[in-house]
C-alpha cells in the first residue's frame, strides 16, 4: 500500500534562505499529495534579528493567512503539531537551510589529483570556500602547515586519502598537523572535521582528533580505490556536520530541529538528493540538471544515470559575496549580457554597493536588467565549473559545449523573479547554453529541496507533488548548433498539433523563434536542418519528435553554441533587446 495512503499527513516544509524564508504546505487532496501554498518573509539569521525563528514564524503566519488554517498557537506563538480535530496545526515539519556565512574549509589529502580532488568535490557540495589545501606535494614543515591551518580559521576540515588498506603513514602525518591545529584554536572555534579516507585508520583518527575537533565524523572512504570515487555516504555525513556548525553559528536552528524531528538539511544537499532520485526514477538516459541562482550561492545539481554531481558556489551567490564574483570574471563579461549602455565602473560600483544590502530587490527596470545580467554570468560560471566534475559518460558532442540533457529545472530568486516567464527562460538559456531538445521547468517556489527533505518522511510525496504540476513548464527548447553567418537560414521547423493544424518557422542563425504550444499539450515537431546544422538529431539530420508545451511553447534557439555575442556593443545591445522582445519582453 502506498505510504501516502497510510500516513496521509500534512507536511509543513520550511526553507530558510540567506534573504527569504519560505513556509510551504504539502497536503493530501483526492488521495494524492499536492503543493497547497507558500508563505514567505525576509530571513532573520543576520543582525539585528539574529534568530531564524522570527522569519520562520512570519513566513508561517503569511502561509496561515493564505490557506486559512491556524498553524501557530495564538497564546504561545508555537507551532501546533500534530494537526488538531478543528483543522488547525500540521502533522509534520521538514526544513532546509542555506542561510549562514560561507563555510571556510581546509581540504587535506594525499595526491593532489586524486584524493585532494575528491575531497574538494565533496567540500564543494556544500556552502564552503576552500581556504587551505594540504597534500603530499606540500613541502612545508608540519608546524608550518599547522600554523597555516590556524591562520585560515576554518569552520570545517575535510580529510581524505589512502585507498582502503593502503597508505597510512603519510596520512598520519597530516592528521598530526590537523590535530595540533585544532588543539591550538579556542574551544568554541574548533572546526568540524570529516574524515573520509583509508578506513584502516578510523581508530587512529578517532584517537588523534576526537578530543580536539569541534566535532569529528568518520565516513566511508570517498576514494576506496584509485579508480573509484564515491562521495554519496560522505556527503550525507558532511550535510549533518554542516547543520551542527550552523547550530553553533545561528540561533533558532535548535527549535526547528525539534519541530522537524531532526529533518533539517542543507538546501543544496536536499536539492541534490531529489535530482539523484529523479534521475534514477525516470531512468534518464542523458542527464537532469537543476540550477539555482540564490543569494547564498549558485548551485548546480546534475544527475546522470543516478549519479549525482553537486556543486555549490558561494562565490557566485548574489548576496553578500556578490562583489567577489570579480575575482573570477571581468566586468566586461557581465556587461556582455546587458542591454543598457552603462560604463564598466558604474557596474563595478553597483556590485559592491549591492553586496552591502543582499536582501534588497531591484526597484527599477534598469536595476532589474543589471541584476539579471549578473545572474546570467553567475550561472554561466557555475555551470562551467560544475561541468568539469560531470561523470565521464556525460560527454559533450564538442569541446566547450554542454552534454545532452533530458531536462532542466531552474530556480532561485534571480531566475524566478524575472519580470516574465520568458525572461526566466532566456536567463537559463544564456547561462546554461544547453544543446539538443529538452523541456525546461521553473521551480518558482523553490520546492525541489523541500521535496528532497520531505522524502525523508514520505517517499511518495515528492513524486506526487511533481506530477501534479508544481513546477511551471516554460517550454521545450531546441538548440541549434551550426557553422553559419548571422542571418543564414539554418533550420526549417514544423509543429503539427493534435488537431492536425500546423505552425512553421524558417529559423535563421542568430535568432530565437517561438512556436506556440500551450502547457499540457503535446505536438509533433519536424526538424529539417540546413547547412549541416544540428538541431538535436545529429549534424544535418532531419527527423521529428514529440514535444510538450509550456508557457512559451516550443523555443528554437539558433543563436549558436557556444553563444556568440557581437563584439560591437551597440549591435550587441540591439540584439539582446530583440531576444528579450521575442520571449515576451
Amino acid at each position, binding site marked *: 500500500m502506498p505510504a501516502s495512503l497510510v500516513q496521509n499527513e500534512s507536511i509543513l516544509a520550511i526553507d530558510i534562505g540567506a534573504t527569504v524564508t519560505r513556509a510551504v504546505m504539502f497536503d493530501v487532496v483526492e488521495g494524492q499529495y499536492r503543493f497547497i501554498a507558500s508563505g514567505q518573509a525576509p530571513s532573520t539569521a543576520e543582525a539585528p534579528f539574529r534568530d531564524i525563528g522570527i522569519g520562520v514564524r512570519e513566513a508561517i503566519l503569511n502561509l496561515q493567512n493564505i490557506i486559512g488554517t491556524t498553524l501557530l498557537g495564538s497564546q504561545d506563538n508555537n507551532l501546533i503539531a500534530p494537526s488538531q480535530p478543528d483543522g488547525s496545526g500540521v502533522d509534520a515539519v521538514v526544513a532546509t537551510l542555506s542561510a549562514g556565512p560561507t563555510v571556510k574549509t581546509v581540504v587535506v589529502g594525499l595526491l593532489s589529483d586524486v584524493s585532494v580532488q575528491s575531497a574538494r568535490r565533496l567540500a564543494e557540495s556544500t556552502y564552503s570556500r576552500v581556504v587551505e589545501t594540504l597534500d603530499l606535494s606540500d613541502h612545508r614543515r608540519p*608546524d608550518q602547515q599547522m600554523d597555516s591551518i590556524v591562520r585560515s580559521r576554518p569552520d570545517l576540515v575535510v580529510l581524505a586519502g589512502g585507498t582502503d588498506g593502503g597508505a597510512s603513514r603519510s596520512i598520519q602525518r597530516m592528521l598530526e598537523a590537523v590535530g595540533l591545529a585544532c588543539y591550538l584554536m579556542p574551544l568554541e572555534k574548533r572546526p568540524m572535521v570529516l574524515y573520509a579516507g583509508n578506513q584502516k585508520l578510523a581508530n587512529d583518527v578517532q584517537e588523534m582528533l576526537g578530543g580536539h575537533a569541534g566535532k569529528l565524523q568518520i565516513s566511508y572512504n570517498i576514494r576506496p580505490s584509485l579508480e573509484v570515487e564515491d562521495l554519496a555516504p560522505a556527503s550525507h555525513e558532511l550535510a549533518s556536520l554542516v547543520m551542527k556548525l550552523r547550530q553553533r553559528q545561528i540561533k533558532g536552528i535548535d527549535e526547528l530541529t525539534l519541530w522537524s524531528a531532526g529533518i533539517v538539511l542543507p538546501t543544496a544537499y536536499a536539492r541534490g538528493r531529489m535530482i539523484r532520485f529523479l534521475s534514477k526514477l525516470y531512468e534518464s538516459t542523458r542527464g537532469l540538471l537543476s540550477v539555482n541562482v540564490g543569494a547564498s550561492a549558485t548551485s548546480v545539481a546534475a544527475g546522470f544515470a543516478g549519479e549525482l554531481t553537486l556543486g555549490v558556489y558561494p562565490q557566485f551567490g548574489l548576496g553578500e559575496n556578490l562583489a567577489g564574483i570579480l575575482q573570477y570574471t571581468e566586468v566586461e563579461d557581465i556587461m556582455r549580457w546587458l542591454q543598457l549602455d552603462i560604463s564598466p565602473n558604474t557596474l563595478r560600483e553597483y556590485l559592491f554597493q549591492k553586496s552591502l544590502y543582499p536582501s534588497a530587490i*531591484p526597484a*527599477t527596470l534598469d536595476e532589474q536588467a543589471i541584476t539579471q545580467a549578473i545572474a546570467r554570468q553567475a550561472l554561466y560560471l557555475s555551470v562551467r565549473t560544475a561541468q568539469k566534475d560531470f561523470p565521464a559518460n556525460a560527454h559533450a558532442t564538442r569541446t566547450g559545449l554542454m552534454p545532452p540533457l533530458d531536462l532542466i529545472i531552474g530556480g532561485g530568486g534571480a531566475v524566478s523573479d524575472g519580470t516574465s516567464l520568458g525572461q526566466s527562460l532566456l536567463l537559463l538559456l544564456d547561462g546554461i547554453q544547453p544543446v539538443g531538445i529538452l523541456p525546461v521547468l521553473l521551480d518558482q517556489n523553490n520546492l525541489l529541496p523541500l521535496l528532497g527533505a520531505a522524502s525523508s518522511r514520505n517517499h511518495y510525496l515528492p513524486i506526487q507533488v511533481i506530477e501534479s504540476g508544481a513546477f511551471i513548464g516554460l517550454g521545450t527548447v531546441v538548440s541549434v548548433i551550426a557553422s553559419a553567418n548571422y542571418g543564414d537560414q539554418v533550420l526549417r521547423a514544423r509543429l503539427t498539433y493534435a488537431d492536425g493544424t500546423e505552425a512553421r518557422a524558417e529559423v535563421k542563425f542568430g535568432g530565437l523563434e517561438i512556436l506556440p504550444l500551450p502547457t499540457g499539450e503535446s505536438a509533433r515537431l519536424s526538424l529539417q536542418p540546413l547547412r549541416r546544422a544540428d538541431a538535436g538529431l545529429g549534424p544535418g539530420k532531419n527527423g521529428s519528435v514529440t514535444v510538450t508545451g509550456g508557457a512559451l511553447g516550443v523555443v528554437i534557439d539558433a543563436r549558436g553554441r557556444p553563444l556568440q555575442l557581437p563584439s560591437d556593443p551597440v549591435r550587441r545591445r540591439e540584439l539582446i533587446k530583440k531576444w528579450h522582445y521575442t520571449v515576451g519582453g
Partner: protein
Amino acid sequence: MLAPILHVLPLTTIVRERLLPVLGKVNARVNQRVNPTDIVAEANFAREHVLLDVARTFGVSAITADKMIRVKEGDRLTEGALVAEKSGLFRRSIKAPRAGRVMVAGSGQVLMEVGDTRVELRAGLPGMVTQVIAERGVVIRTSGALVQGVWGNGRIDNGLMVSLLEKPDDVLTADRLDVSLRGSVILGGHVRDAETLRVAAELPIRGLVISSLLSALIIPAYQMRYPILVLDGFGALPMNSAAFKLLTTSNKREATVNAEHFDRYSGNRPEVIIPLPVSTEPEEPNGYEAFAVGQTVRMRRPPNAGMIGSISNVHTGLSSLPSGLRARAADVRLENGENVLVPLVNLEVVG
C-alpha cells in the same frame, strides 16, 4: 514586516563589547571609568609554532623519547636552550631554534609557540565598564551620539572631529588636507583618489569619516593605519541627510571612529560615537521594529539610494514595482517632497 534600524541618534546609551582576538588578561574592573586610549585588556599570542619531533630525530619510540625531553608545558625557553638529550657514547641534543614557550611536551614531541606578539586592547570609547568577560575583554557603557556606517577598514581610533563638509555631495580631495588637521578625525564627503588617503596618512590623522568611496580604493583603504569609515557606500554617493546634519553640527567634538568590519551575523558594524555628558541616561536603541506610518527611513537602493524620507503608507499585500517585481512596499515622502513607492526590503528605519 520587521524593519532593521540604522542608528543615527543625537543622544542615546551605547553599550559595546570590546574583546581580545585571543585569550589574555583583562586590566579593567567593573564600575571603572575608562578613556578611549586606556588599555582594558592585553594578550600575548604566538604567530608561529615549532614542532620538535624528538622521537623521529633520535630514532626512538615515543615512550623512550619522552624520557629524553628536558622541558615541560609552560616553560619559557631562550634560543638554544636544551629541549631534549640522548645520553650514551654519542651524546646528542635538541635545542630550541628560537625563543618561545613550550605548549605541549609528550608523545615524543615538543610543540613550542614562538614569535610572541603583544596585543593591547584599548577601550576605544570613554565610559563605564559594566562587565568583565574573563580573559577576553569588557563591556563599556556610555552616552552620546551614534552614527552607523556600512563599511570600515578594520581600525579604531579617536580624536577631535573636524568637518570639511559643506554639502552632502562634497568631494574630499588631497588639497583640502593641511597640517592644521594633524591628529584629528576628518569628516569628509566622497573620496575618489588614493592620493587623498595617502596625504591624510602623512599628516597623520586619527580617522576619516566619509560618505562614499570608489570600490577601487578598498585595497588602499585597508593599507591605511587610521580608521576609515564609509557611511553610505561605494561609488559617488552623497552623505545621507540624517548623518550629515548630526555630524556637521558636532564639529570640534571628541569622536571615536570604530571602523570595524560589518559583520552581518554578530551585528557589529562600523560607527562613529560622540560621547556627551548627560544627567539622566537615555534609553538604549532598539535593533529592529515593525514598519509603520511616520517612521523616518533611508532608501538602501536606487533610484533614491541614501535619501531620507518618511513612511506615509504601508501597503497591505504585494505591490507592483516599476521593475516588474511584486513585493511588500510602502509610500515614502522624500525630503524633497517627492512621493515614491519603495519595497520594504529596500528600506531601513533611521533612529
